[in-house]
């Protein structure tokens, strides 16, 4: 007898949860006395198992964010039997070894000291979600949760903003749970723009409680809950010349670079302000 075709009867509380785990070794060694990666993983694994128990059709996919690479370490829908979250541990170990070997090869990652590749894992999560969207009319409601602690790498700003706008377009909320010491401006903006929840837990020993009460509910039930509201999102820009945060500045009308003081010439695109640009090649050579 042929196996029955699974009927895609999806109620509105089925979710697809993409979890982005920060596995940056520099970051984890820097907060060693307070919290360790193994304790963190025990909280996260319990959380993932509880998500899988909430609804039989829930799906969880875990992507590890390293310094030089990102990779899928767990997919609850692969394989015939729904797996427990512990099966991600060997793959995570393999990923961490690969990531470390990559960083020995390149010295210059260009990401800033100790920041992890959040833009890469956000993009991979969005690719997976796009594939789910195209798999048919009935699919679970996707959302992304970032368990992040490394500082923001300013080199990834454009890529992260692109992912945020892409998530906003597809109506995928990005939740953030910041386990580092300082707030992350990128994740604050991500959660604000996409309609997700941003949280920085006060006590990391109780991380599972925060995860289970704030981030475990599906999108439909969130309408009935009081979730942490954004305290204040910092939308100020930083000037290109000094990297200071400014609240009033000057924008080049050609390339939209931000400057804090009035200048004669734009350092990014070379346009001279107040003068019509000419196409004359000799004039541009004189400028140089």
């Amino acid at each position, binding site marked *: 007898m042929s196996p029955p075709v699974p009927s895609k009867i999806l109620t509105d509380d089925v979710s697809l949860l993409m979890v982005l785990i920060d596995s940056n070794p520099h970051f984890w060694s820097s907060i060693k006395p307070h919290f360790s990666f193994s304790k963190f993983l025990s909280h996260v694994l319990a959380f993932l198992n509880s998500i899988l128990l909430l609804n039989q059709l829930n799906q969880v996919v875990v992507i590890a964010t390293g310094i030089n690479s990102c990779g899928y370490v767990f997919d609850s829908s692969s394989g015939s039997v729904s797996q427990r979250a512990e099966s991600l541990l060997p793959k995570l170990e393999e990923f961490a070894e690969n990531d470390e070997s990559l960083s020995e090869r390149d010295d210059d990652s260009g990401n800033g000291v100790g920041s992890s590749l959040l833009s890469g894992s956000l993009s991979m999560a969005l690719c997976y979600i796009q594939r789910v969207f195209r798999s048919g009319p009935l699919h679970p409601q996707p959302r992304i949760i970032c368990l992040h602690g490394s500082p923001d790498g300013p080199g990834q700003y454009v890529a992260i903003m692109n992912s945020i*706008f892409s998530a906003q377009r597809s109506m995928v909320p990005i939740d953030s749970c910041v386990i580092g010491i300082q707030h992350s401006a990128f994740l604050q903006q991500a959660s604000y723009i996409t309609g997700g929840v941003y949280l920085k837990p006060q006590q990391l020993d109780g991380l599972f409680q925060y995860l289970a009460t704030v981030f475990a509910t599906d999108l439909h039930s969130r309408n009935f809950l009081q979730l942490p509201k954004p305290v*204040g999102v910092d939308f100020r820009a930083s000037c290109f010349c000094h990297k200071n945060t400014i609240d009033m500045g000057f924008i080049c*009308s050609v390339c939209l670079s931000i400057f804090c003081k009035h200048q004669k010439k734009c350092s990014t695109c070379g346009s001279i302000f107040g003068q019509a640009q000419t196409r004359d090649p000799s004039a541009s050579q004189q400028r140089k």
Partner: protein
Amino acid sequence: MMNRDINGEGRKLNRGEEEEEEDEDEESGRGRDAWERAYADERSWESLQEDESGLLRPIDNKALHHAQYRRRLRTATTAGIQKGLIRYLYIVIDLSRAAGEMDYKPSRMVVVARQVEAFIREFFDQNPLSQIGLVTLKDGVAQCLTDLGGSPESHIKALMGKLECSGDSSLQNGLDLVHDLLNQIPSYGHREVLILYSALSTCDPGDIMETIQKCKGAKIRCSIVGLSAELYICKYLCQETGGLYSVALDEPHLKELVLEHAPPPPAIAEFAIANLIKMGFPQRAAEGVISICSCHKEAKFGGGYTCPRCKARVCELPTECRICGLTLVSSPHLARSYHHLFPITPFDDVSPSITNIPQKLPKSCFGCQQSLLNPGSLFFSTEIANFQKLD
């Protein structure tokens, strides 16, 4: 009563003949509506396919592939070209008698209004620092429906309230009005006009060639999307001013042509003077604060942004502070435009010869982990050095 539906009468006569002859399939299809032709001639049901689980697969992959191919070509060719990011665009909508024609269902005017609404939303999504205004051509006169502004809702509401068509359309009056309105904008902005023209003629008070030269001198880039047929005067106008002229074949094609104008066009350097624009980046107020907002003039609770120069409260961004005139934006708005400045490197098409050698390919797509055993088209990105599916 001046509008005789000539096409409709013709259609009825033909159908009467067909019924008399009782010969439907052999007729050339001239007398049928487009929807009837889709069943009789094109047999759209025969191109349905089922996938493994018995669900229907979407039909038209070729058009999708072609559209993606064209999009990729466009980003590849315009990657290094300067684009006009701060745009002041006027949309001129033809509401003359010809807009009441029903070859687009329910009428050209309604279809155009729907496409303009989608276009306005897409435009503000891709160009947050730009502004749009609406102008209508009706009874031989051009009227300004809404002034240049940055809020999509006000434009859409004004447009949907004024959908009546009558009289002739006058291209010259429309251009004159837009020329006067665009004279007032700052010198760093790019001036553009998008005309949605349904009529087959224009009824002008003077010499339209002079007006076209005036617009060319004022550096206004005029683009036209025609709904009926190609007109020489439209083609001439677009050629002179450096815009795009296209004529729509049916509603999906119209949508594609209109949305083509949403991303910023390549900029002509002399058209806009580079300038430093003073802008403010307000902070979002905390939730429990009560203040009087300057746009609605009433007390509001929580949310809202504070102008850094005069501390007035505004409700949404981007906007101009009503008290001190400072342009207020947030950094995500600027970041939205960086997408046009730094486009992603296009992916390379993987040739079919490689896809036939299974050993050379990885087992699954790098991005979404879907199995690559039966790929439709494969792409290789040089940056991430890995294979990815087309979709």
